[in-house]
């Protein structure tokens, strides 16, 4: 009875580790897809390929939701990691919000079709790349929290760096937009998109700060 329960415990643990890894993979992949969506939109507008990629992001977001629910159910049913459970579930919930933000931005591009003049496109691409790098560093922070706690601070530090860069790029681009000859409604529309992209970094930094606290709590 005892050895069967132990085998089942280790089997379940392995399965959960896989699911959490898959979740972080989804977060990383959605970011890369988002970058390609911004590029595709600026180059060619709404095309079939663009719609296909947006659909892919949506499917990945649903998969992430499923994984979060499964992890939550297993952690509670099997009373695993009782001292870290609430931290881990809160972390997954907040990471899922970032995937949701990526998905939301993709739909906003698809529905609202913002008109970005050529002079702003490079800045927008750079901002998107910074945001994706920020979230990539966040993914490394999350993986470290689960596997290599002493590296959490190193990766979290990079998230903060990219968040500051993103703020600078957002401020610079917003200033350029409002200094331009565009009408006020066009300026507000473009600023809305730029701000929504920048907010992903703000969320990522908040999560990185949370992870650092969770890491301290995990000390023996």
């Amino acid at each position, binding site marked *: 009875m005892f050895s069967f329960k132990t085998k089942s415990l280790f089997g379940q643990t392995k399965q959960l580790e896989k699911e959490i890894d898959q979740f972080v993979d989804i977060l990383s992949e959605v970011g890369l897809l988002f970058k390609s969506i911004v590029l595709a939109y600026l180059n060619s507008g709404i095309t079939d390929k663009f719609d296909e990629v947006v659909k892919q992001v949506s499917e990945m977001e649903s998969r992430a939701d499923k994984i979060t629910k499964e992890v939550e159910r297993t952690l509670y049913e099997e009373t695993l990691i009782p001292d870290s459970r609430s931290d881990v579930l809160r972390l997954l919930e907040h990471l899922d919000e970032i995937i949701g933000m990526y998905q939301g931005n993709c739909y906003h591009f698809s529905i609202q079709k913002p008109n970005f003049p050529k002079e702003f496109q490079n800045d927008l691409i750079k901002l998107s790349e910074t945001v994706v790098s920020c979230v990539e560093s966040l993914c490394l922070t999350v993986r470290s929290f*689960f596997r290599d706690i002493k590296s959490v601070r190193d990766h979290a530090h990079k998230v903060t760096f990219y968040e500051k860069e993103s703020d600078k790029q957002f401020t610079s681009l917003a200033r350029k937009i409002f200094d331009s000859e565009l009408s006020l409604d066009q300026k507000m529309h473009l600023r809305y998109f730029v701000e929504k992209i920048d907010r992903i970094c703000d969320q990522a930094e908040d999560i990185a700060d949370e992870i650092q606290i969770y890491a301290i709590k995990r000390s*023996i």
Partner: protein
Amino acid sequence: MIFLLGGLFLGWSLGANDAANVFGTAVGTRMVQFKTAALVCSVFVILGAIISGAGTTETLGKLGAINALPGAFAACVAAGLSVYIMTKFGLPVSTTQAIVGAIVGWNVYTGSSTNIKILFTILSTWILCPIIAALIAMFFFIITKQILRKSNWHLLRLDAYTRTALLLAGAFGAYSLGANNIANVMGVFVPISPFTDIHLMNVFTFSSKEQLFLLGGIAIAVGVFTYSKKVMFTVGNDLLKLSPPAAFIVVIAHSIVLFLFASQGISDFLHSINLPSIPLVPVSSSQAVVGAVIGIGILKRGKEVQWDIAGKIAIGWFLLPVIAALISLAVLFVLQNIFNQTVSF
């Protein structure tokens, strides 16, 4: 035979209270299910009592050779009652200290001499036990921290390993508890055992002492199953909040200390290499746990230890044997003068 009920009552209260020292944090934090903990605890307590309980029993017998069943009954009832009173005040108590106080009470009442050398040996272990437990806990804490720092185990994998470790440490702890503390439960009955040796096919002998230990072990197991759950869910975090790996360290330190003070094998080995042998004395499971917890707390620079609770616990340790001795005197008086029982020969 009815006088054995005193020992069984003490065994039940030992199981109800001390099982929490072995599995309290594991069950309280839900790392191990209560049913699993209770089963493992019961099996290994009985094994420890029967296989390794003789050494500490001999030492306790030298403190005061209670030679009448009513006298032994009185000692057990006095110990059990004093443990119950202190538990009501919310203090972790030691059945060891209670039975020692009760035996000294019997010695005083009957005019028998108390073996001062043995008494001082026992008293010294009350100071040594928590100190040794603290030192062992500190050692394991440092080692475990290094292992965890270098291992890079996934959080979930670490959780699974910790659960398994807590179960194994708990089994060892239960064995040590049985080996070390069965003397508290049945030690006073050994010189006047109502049982006779059972010979099975001229191959195996189940001695009267072992039968007593089995009975005492079963009483402890009943205490574990019937009352320890409540105690397990309340123990553990009052003195210092422990993470599951730290809880494992506390259990292993506690188990090693109890085993050291019960193992004839280790005692003989140390004697054979001309080192001072460890006295085989029943020591307090609660004191070992408190010592281990404080040891870890000291390594964390003592910030998180609830020192006021530690102070209360220490006061309880001094009061308990005195209370047990006084109750022993009262019970002996009642048995002799009201129930006309012979409390000594």
